[in-house]
């Protein structure tokens, strides 16, 4: 594994590497050499199985990380190629010409993270979310709880079986009122400070 990483480093300059276990290594490559490096790994080093493509949202560092995991059937080992993308304009070169499976992954990432892969077939077609007009849902700033509260409403006539609620209603009315009042004040203050910011 070390030899392969050294050869990869000589050819494409590995920015960072770390070996998670003897048969799995992570390497970080620059965006403009990533597709070349993956082609090299596939054709020369024998990493011929594309396990998956995935994206991770690092909102604090304002970047997306794309992870390509490649598997070598002879060595039974994996190399995960990580590519860091700018979060403002996330565009990555397509891999659809290397593996037929890649276009499906790219379609999903386009939909879920908004990372574009120009040239990938059917990449703009919705795959899972038909008629979605919000921000891509797997991004960190998309709040699932807020979205579901805004979009869906509880059915009328539904009774709660939550023991906390029942106890509050039956035994601790005053305490519950105080509790919710405090919660409301705290929330209002937070909203106010958020608006001010």
């Amino acid at each position, binding site marked *: 594994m070390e030899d392969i990483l050294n050869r990869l480093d000589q050819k494409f300059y590995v920015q960072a590497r770390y070996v*998670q*276990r003897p*048969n*799995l290594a*992570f390497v970080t490559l620059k965006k403009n050499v990533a597709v070349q490096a993956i082609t090299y790994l596939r054709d020369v080093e024998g990493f*011929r*199985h*594309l*396990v*998956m493509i*995935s994206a*991770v*949202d690092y909102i604090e560092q304002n970047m997306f990380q794309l*992870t390509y*995991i490649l598997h070598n*059937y002879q060595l*039974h080992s*994996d190399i*995960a190629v990580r590519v860091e993308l700018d979060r403002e304009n996330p565009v990555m070169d397509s891999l*659809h*010409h290397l*593996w*037929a*499976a890649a*276009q*499906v*992954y790219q379609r999903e990432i386009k939909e879920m993270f908004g990372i574009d892969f120009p*040239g990938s*077939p*059917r990449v703009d077609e*919705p*795959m*899972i*979310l*038909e008629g979605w007009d919000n921000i891509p*849902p*797997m991004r*960190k700033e*998309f709040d*699932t*709880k807020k979205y579901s509260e805004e979009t869906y409403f509880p059915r009328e006539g539904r009774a709660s079986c939550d023991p906390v609620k029942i106890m509050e209603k039956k035994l601790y009315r005053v305490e519950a009122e105080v509790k919710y009042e405090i919660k409301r004040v705290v929330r209002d203050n937070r909203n106010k400070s958020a608006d001010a910011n």
Partner: protein
Amino acid sequence: MKSKELSETIEINQQTPTKTILNPWQPFWAEQKEFDLKSGKYLKIWHGPQHPGVTGNMALELTLQGDVVVDCKTHVGYLHRGFEKLMERRKFIQCFPIVCRICVPEPDYNEYLFAAAVEELAGIQVPERGQWIRTLVLEMIRLASLTMGLGGQAGAFGLVPVGQWGVAHRDFILDLFEELTGGRIYHMYIIPGGVRQDFPDDEFPHRVELVLQKLEKLILDIEKLMFNNAVFKARTKGLGKIPAEWVELFGITGTNARAAGVPIDVRKDNPYLVYEQLDFEMILGSASDVYERSLLRKEEILNSINLIRQIFKKMPNKGEVRIKLPNVLHWKVPAGETYVRAETSRGEMGYYMVTDGSEYPRRVHVRGASYTHAMALLEQLAVGVSIADVAGLMVSLQTCPPEIER
């Protein structure tokens, strides 16, 4: 057979007007076919989202010429529940009721892989008996899934009794799961550090053995009714051939790859749990059609039965099944990234987990085997197949749509 001849003539007709494009960025799988639907030659139908045989909802948009498929597009999204996103706001132990719902027929693989990823990142060692019980659970659920899958395969070609036998015999295995874990379909039995509890009593292996004997009898019956059936043979031999060179191109794994003669098995290549100590052979085929794949799955059932017997023979009788861990709601897993994989009945399943040292996973990506089988591969395989055989072809890839959209 007739449909195949027809499809060949159609292909010849189509090839004459178009010229071959030799563009490396436009390989055959990236071609967009366009059909003049107004000409009256073609008919577009939706096959799905409800299907006989496939566990879950998935639609095929088929373009037909006569009764032969000339174009196929897969549509998913009927089962999307955003599990990967939901996991990002749940603590590690709270993810277990979610992950097992990713694949209904084989929930334990998801639990095992999630637990294994957490264990690897946190550096937790599982006691030996815990590992053996995990292997037992995984083999039992493989057996249940394969039995039902084989029944679904037969059902898609009109042999409904086999389907009913399959589901009934799966139920016996689910009963065993109820004894062992408390749940029938979703078990939430494998947790980081081991499994939740030991066997209910000393007689448990004996009751498993009784079910295994029932299954062996069932296989004899299935052989008579399904594999020696002239109609089944005529319809499935030569249908849905996957060339061996497609295996790497389309990321095909599991029985679908082994039926094409490509020796890939995660249990052999990257042994996890105690598979190194178990004695079994990789089952390979060559014809790579629907018949071969069903035959291979039947062999896999027998292999699983053999493995379960070996596990009971070789496993230590006493010992801890789980190590003591701190309060489950306050786990903080160190920052890191990992990818763990296991061999399900459908192929390679893997979990890619990224943690950042907090109480919540930063990102969990589930690599399901059906993902590439049903999306990229099926679109190519379905071309040239008669509409009557499309359902059988789908089942023969062992598709599990919940795994595709998570």
